[in-house]
């Protein structure tokens, strides 16, 4: 997948590229508004990560331009501004998601994949991993074609695992993905273990082994053979 990262913060650009490259994506960067405009008009991209506060211009203007030209490119806004107005405006203008800085790279990865699954970009709304299959439009998971009953959190957890397969997910990152700012209420994330265990039980014997415990750190979703 070819991704344009329109972000004026070079350090952040580099981190995102490094992370996404592991999934064999091709990343290009635009460090200011005009570079972004010219790249968007010349090249074709599968996805744009768009910072609102580009040094020389407003990312939302770029978004308007893209939509005006009728380009069917998914756009995820990454902004330091948590204000609701910006979020609403961005989404109204046709952005597919809005991610507030700071974010975990695994969270970004999972949002990218969620956007790509959407029907309007002709993506496949199904996720599969060996015998596990998830129909995201129905929010239903199957193991060997047999539906399994998951709670909302367990479902989110499974999708998060598969979209970030082969990556180490710490307890903190998992907790933040599932509960957002609400994790402020707990002092320790050890309780994640309970939720992981429930999920493992429901995934039946074979699939349960995909969730590996990385000792005292967190979890990693990977194929048995690896």
């Amino acid at each position: 997948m070819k991704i344009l990262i329109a972000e004026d913060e070079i350090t952040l650009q580099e981190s995102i590229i490094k992370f996404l490259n592991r999934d064999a994506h091709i990343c290009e960067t635009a460090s200011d508004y005009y570079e972004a405009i010219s790249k968007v008009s010349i090249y074709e991209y599968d996805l744009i990560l768009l910072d609102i506060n580009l040094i020389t211009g407003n990312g939302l203007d770029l978004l308007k331009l893209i939509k005006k030209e009728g380009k069917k490119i998914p756009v995820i806004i990454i902004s330091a501004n948590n204000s609701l107005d910006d979020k609403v405006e961005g989404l109204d203008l046709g952005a597919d998601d809005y991610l507030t800085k700071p974010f975990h790279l695994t969270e970004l990865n999972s949002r990218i994949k969620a956007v790509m699954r959407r029907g309007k970009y002709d993506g496949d709304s199904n996720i599969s991993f060996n015998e596990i299959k998830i129909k995201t439009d129905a929010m239903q998971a199957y193991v060997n074609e047999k539906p399994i009953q998951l709670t909302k959190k367990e479902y989110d957890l499974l999708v998060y695992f598969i979209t970030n397969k082969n990556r180490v997910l710490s307890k903190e990152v998992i907790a933040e993905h599932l509960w957002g700012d609400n994790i402020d209420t707990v002092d320790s994330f050890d309780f994640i273990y309970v939720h992981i265990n429930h999920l493992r039980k429901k995934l039946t014997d074979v699939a349960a082994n995909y969730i590996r415990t990385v000792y005292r750190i967190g979890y990693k979703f990977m194929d048995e053979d690896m």
Partner: protein
Amino acid sequence: MNHKKKIKLLKKISRSFLTYGLLAMILSVIALYFITKYIIKDETEESLNSQAFRIEKLIEKEGVPINVHPIINTQEVKYIGTQRIKDTILYDPAEEELEPYMELITYKKINERAYKISVRTKVVELYDILQAIILSYIVILLTVFLAQYYLSRKNTALVWKPFFNNLKKIKTFSIQSNKAINLEETDIEEFSELNTEIKTLTNKVISDYQNLKQFTEDVSHEIQTPLANIQAKIGNLFDENQINEKQYNLLIEISNNARRLATLNKKLILLAKIENQQFKTSNQINFTNILKKSIESFEGLNKVPILTREMEPLEINGDPYLAGIIADNLLSNAIKYTSSEGEIIIKTTTNEFIVSNSGEAAIKNPEKLYDRFYKENTTKKSLGLGLAIVKKICDNYGYTISYTFSNNMHVFKLTFN
């Protein structure tokens, strides 16, 4: 603050006009009374003297005493006495009663004979004149005074009109509208100066407010970006899978602190926005639904049960986003401070939202509960902003929040009007 009793400007001006005007009136009437009385007395004495002089001449010519009762009385005496004036009461045959008179008694030597000459005049007439003068004076004075009072009232109102109009405009001035104040021009120098000063001040306030808003946004951006860098770098380090447990734990600490800082930043910005009244929405919203969503969002995170036994539909006026913040913050507060054996009870009525959670003793400093960064229990990792934000929202939208401790439960009650 000065808590002196307030009075309307026009009332105050007319009140002082009335007070001083009446005082001057009373004083001038008293003065007029004494002056007129003195003049009348003086004139009467003079006229009595000249009368006595004419009688003296008449006796000199005729050689006999003259008597006209009761106003002239002359008689021969042995010795010459001293001249004097006195008040007396005599019988007046014309009126057939006793009347007060003023009497001049003088002694003269006419043709080698000593005479005592008494001339008198009726006092009643003098006082009648005095009364007439005073009365007409009061009538004239009152007429002039009332006319003056009425005119000055009208005039004052006219003079102060631009002031009152501008006062109205100042009252409707809103700092958020970003519109300079438009005051009525006037030909009165002081008012014009006042207008200029108010314009300068309000423009300064508007620009300060805009700067502050911009500053808050800039700070947010400037802080969130390095935090995003920290978070992303750590993410990559985890991902590379080449770190040992000790390094990992250090990185987790850094990551957690970065998140803490980001949350703190977000909450402070939210607080500033509420304070600056940047939320203007006030719609009819279904609070019960918002509350249910909020409870759901804590699902799996809370180690204590959240019981919702009595949930009457609660409709409130406000901002849906802020209503969500209220529900989230009160719930998260309850979850944080409930021990693992306790429970949380949520209740709504048609105008109240009540969150109770088990506890051992009442909060020690309930008055500080809504202060920023106040922490009742320092062992908890709380930021101490949740309740401060709830309180600010309540203040802005006219909700009331109260805290009580009863039956081993901390109870927060929100009342919507």
